[in-house]
């Protein structure tokens, strides 16, 4: 029961970071390996405002969203778009963007190391107990989960009920058809990339309320987000959300039943099983 609840609570924040990566990959077609560093930057932001001026992370993650959006928009516009323009095929772009964002991740790690040093950091926010069925859990985990859930639902509704959301889904389905109906594909991609970055940063801020971070831990979260997005089937954010819970539960179960050191290994076992038996993802559709 314990495992189930902690796993689900963890899955909520995972869902948010993965959905950010998915928007970037699905719409802008950039596999962003610097996604984890954006997440860590979000965690640093929440930490800094909380310890420096007692601003609740719940406010900070919304407050810095425009900054995160603008930074990621600019990354797409000035670093990625030239690659997109000169790439001859989607495969070509994939290789280029993976190399470029991998390089970017080192730059970001370096900047964060210079700004904040290499220490682990954490802070106590809402560390009060909260009872679910007679068992105490930390409030911060519950609040982070509810917050993440609200973000995910909001994003889903936005994607499915507004013209702009429809535009992003259109580009994700077919850039070519999008161009033909008059969509500025580069503009829509920059928007999705910025939005995805802002969402990932918010996920980082929420995770920092109950996890310990350091400047170079981003790569681990990039890998987790990748596992989730590929497991979810790449196409629909609902797939990623469910996959995030699968990962949250798996990690929690392995950590408490076997050994906390094995969580990442367990994530990979799940990942490899999915790739072997359902390469299109748990919820993906087989390519026709």
């Amino acid at each position, binding site marked *: 029961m314990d495992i189930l609840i902690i796993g689900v609570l963890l899955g909520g924040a995972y869902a948010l970071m993965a959905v950010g990566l998915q928007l970037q990959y699905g719409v802008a077609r950039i596999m962003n390996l610097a996604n984890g560093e954006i997440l860590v930057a979000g965690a640093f932001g929440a930490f800094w405002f909380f310890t420096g001026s007692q601003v609740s992370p719940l406010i900070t993650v919304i407050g810095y969203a425009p900054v995160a959006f603008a930074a990621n928009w600019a990354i797409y516009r000035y670093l990625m778009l030239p690659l997109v323009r000169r790439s001859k095929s989607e495969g070509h772009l994939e290789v280029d963007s993976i190399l470029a964002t991998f390089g970017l991740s080192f730059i970001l790690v370096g900047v964060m190391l210079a700004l904040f040093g290499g220490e682990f950091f954490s802070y106590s926010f809402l560390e009060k107990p909260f009872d679910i069925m007679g068992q105490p859990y930390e409030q911060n985990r519950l609040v982070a989960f509810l917050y993440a859930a609200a973000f995910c639902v909001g994003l889903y509704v936005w994607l499915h009920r507004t013209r702009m959301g429809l535009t992003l889904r259109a580009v994700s389905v*077919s850039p070519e058809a999008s161009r*033909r*109906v008059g969509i500025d594909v580069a503009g829509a991609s920059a928007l999705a990339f910025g939005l995805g970055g802002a969402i990932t940063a918010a996920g980082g801020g929420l995770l920092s309320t109950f996890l310990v971070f350091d400047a170079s831990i981003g790569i681990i979260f990039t890998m987790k987000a990748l596992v989730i997005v590929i497991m979810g089937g790449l196409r629909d954010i609902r797939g990623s959300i469910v996959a995030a819970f699968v990962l949250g539960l798996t990690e929690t179960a392995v950590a408490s039943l076997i050994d906390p050191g094995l969580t990442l290994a367990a994530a990979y076992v799940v990942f490899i099983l999915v790739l072997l038996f359902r390469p299109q993802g748990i919820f993906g559709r087989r390519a026709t």
Partner: protein
Amino acid sequence: MFEARHISVAYGKHRALEDVSVTVAAGEIVAMLGANGAGKSTFLKAVAGLVAKDAGGGVALDGREIGALPPHEIVERGIALVPEGRGLFDDLTVIENLTLGAYPRRARASESENLERVLDLFPVLAQRRRQVARTLSGGQQQMVAIGTAMMSAPFMLMLDEPSLGLSPMLCTELFRTLARVREARVGILLVEQNAKQSLAIADRGYLLENGRITGEDSAANLADDPSVQAAYLGAASPA
């Protein structure tokens, strides 16, 4: 009035189009006939801004030059393309496809009237609004493709072999529909292998061979021309 002047296109060293000029007046249906590989699709893509044109050519709509604009701006000016193989948003629903057709700013104001017109032209689509495009029959997908183009309220509609893969009955229905679209003063450029039916509804026609225009005449004269009959209408079934 749509005018494409001196359009040339090369894919690397391969010259696919050489100095092609085509005009289409408002409300006119113009057929472009040509064998496989003649360059028909290339011409339509060049007009839509989807492949690069050589310098020296131009595309104008009502006298305004639009040849150098990016694809999304060309749609904005009123040229819509129904591509070969339909090119729908496969994973989106019928109504989402049609809504996206009305993406150009120019088309937003009249979006609901255009939708009504499209659903009136293709009543099946009204029943299947929420169905995912990929799961429709070939004929229904073609209707979505044409409907999506119509939603952009175009002045000029270009269709790349729309009858490909349709049953003879659906084909006849399709050509009847195009004749109705023309009534809204839309210019139609129809690229077809089905020369018989396209010449039957067209006003004029062009012949394209190896990337060059080799003939231009009224549709009636083309249909009567023995060499056209031999090349495109099949010797066994003269028109």
